[in-house]
């Protein structure tokens, strides 16, 4: 437990000084998106890794946050900070209501239901042209402002987004080590025993679902206000799959793993650009191979590597002794 907080402190320090190394280059811009993806991956990990419930429609909550915030601030002239709060609350309520029937389902049926929900939301984005601008998107979304400070440059956005991402990570770590986090992990290990201990598994799952949706909506709002432009294509089924991939590749239930997964998937297109059209093939292959040979993800892989190194050292000492 202490180790997680120490690691977090170290991580936060790195994040805060990192921009110095990039001097406003293009990579800084990639890091902004990495921050948003980290928020989303951590949010989904709460659901997938802690509560063990799959969602193939999480991009829709991201999109709902982006559109609610975007429409309210652009078309109706609300303050962007206010619209962020409105979006978070509205999406939270929606997810809470949806959670009860949808989380009754298990496994593939849950996957299919969340996928279906994601597609419905996507179609609504496309079809309500008067409101969302339809497939050609919504442009001219105002930047966030804080007094005289407008978040419009990469560096400013970097700090804005990463503040949110770090807070998200901290909240998730807190949650993992609390009453709720323990109950969730208990459900994961033995649902029967946890129920006998008085854990209301169903309510908890729904609450986590809602929290996860709220964080995703906030990320969506941030995305809308930093990009100034949103279109439905960013919130489709593919992105939902990409989010699940981030969580799985990073490691289920590991907060830092979610960062690793988000980082890898944000950087991956940059790395794969050399292979051009082959990137989709490599992406599919990576998904299969990682799931097959690294079921605990990058975080699990690093942890077991560390474990393997440590006894080796001890072994040497023993041999000498």
């Amino acid at each position: 437990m202490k180790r997680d907080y120490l690691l977090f402190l170290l991580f936060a320090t790195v994040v805060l000084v990192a921009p110095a190394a990039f001097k406003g280059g293009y990579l800084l811009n990639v890091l902004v998106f990495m921050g948003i993806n980290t928020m989303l991956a951590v949010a989904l990990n709460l659901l997938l890794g802690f509560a063990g419930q799959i969602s193939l429609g999480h991009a829709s909550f991201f999109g709902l946050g982006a559109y609610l915030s975007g429409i309210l601030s652009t078309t109706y002239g609300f303050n962007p900070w206010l619209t962020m709060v409105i979006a978070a609350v509205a999406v939270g309520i929606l997810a809470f209501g949806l959670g009860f029937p949808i989380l009754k389902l298990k496994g593939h049926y849950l996957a299919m239901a969340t996928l279906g929900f994601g597609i419905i939301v996507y179609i609504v984005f496309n079809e309500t042209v008067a409101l969302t601008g339809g497939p050609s998107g919504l442009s001219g979304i105002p930047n966030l402002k804080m007094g005289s400070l407008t978040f419009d440059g990469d560096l400013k956005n970097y700090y804005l987004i990463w503040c949110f991402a770090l807070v998200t990570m901290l909240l998730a770590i807190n949650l993992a080590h609390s009453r709720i986090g323990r109950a969730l992990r208990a459900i994961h290990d033995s649902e029967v025993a946890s129920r006998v201990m008085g854990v209301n598994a169903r309510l908890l799952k729904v609450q986590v679902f809602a929290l996860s949706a709220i964080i995703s909506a906030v990320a969506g709002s941030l995305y809308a206000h930093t990009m100034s432009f949103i279109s439905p294509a960013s919130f489709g089924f593919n992105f939902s799959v990409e989010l699940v991939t981030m969580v799985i590749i990073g490691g289920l239930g590991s907060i830092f793993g979610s960062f690793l997964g988000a980082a890898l998937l944000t950087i991956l297109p940059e790395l794969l650009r050399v292979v051009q059209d082959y990137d989709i093939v490599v992406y599919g292959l990576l998904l299969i191979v990682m799931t097959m040979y690294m079921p605990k993800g990058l975080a699990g892989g690093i942890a077991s590597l560390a474990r393997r190194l440590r006894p080796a050292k001890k072994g040497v000492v023993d041999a000498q002794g």
Partner: protein
Amino acid sequence: MDLLQQLTQYAFSGLSTGAIYALIGLGFAIIYNATGIINFAQGEFVMLGGVLTHFFLIVLKLPAGVAMGGAVIATTVIGALFERLTIRPLKRPTPLSLVIITIGGSIFIRGVAMLVWGKDTQSLPPFSGEEPITLAGATVMPQHLWIFGITLLVIAANKFFFYYTIRGKAMRACSFNRTAASLVGIDVRKMVLLSFVISSAMGAMAGIIIAPLTMTAYDVGVMLGLKGFCAAIIGGMSSGFGTVLGGLLLGLLESLGAGLISSGYKDAIAFIILLLILFIRPQGLFSKAQTERV
């Protein structure tokens, strides 16, 4: 055109599209029943059927029969390889890891198809002419009749295989209880492989017979796969009439929705129905048996 005539046309159009969904849905149901896996790559088998036939028939200029046979065989080999290389080596398969692996497989297959055959949409000649057939004031294409016919044939073959052959019975045994099946000497792994073989062959067949109507390209598998999946779920994941009825119902509702309500929301209507069914009757509309899904 009066309303009644319009409704007849909606019904015919819906049922024709529904038959396509049904055929694809059956592929899902077979793998699910034998293994408990939802194969998200099923749509890609459908795509492969169409794209490969186009490749053999138009590019390599092989005779039609050879081209179609070749497409089915090639797809089946790919399906079997997919199972051998990705599903079988899994030490502890969980529903989650299987969902991700089959999604990864579908992305991979789609990517390879794009690289090999390009991004263009291709059309295939219909089996028997392009003269529409008029029935009760509504029209259908001869190809639709082929789809209906082959769907019926597939159901009959399924019924026969699963209830009257040793292998089929063994596969059903696996779906009820894998451990028990292996205790009585059924090679469960072989059955899983067999289910992938059957469903990829069926997917390819579906892809071939629908391509003259819907055209084909590397990316047609996604939406067709999802719709087929919907059909299977509405039908309660049965590998017989349930899924077929599910597909027909889905097609019908889509067509009526597009004609009478709004064609932009057509797919949304389909998925709302799916959600309602999952919420209210997760065992599917047509089956009574209570299975482990709630």
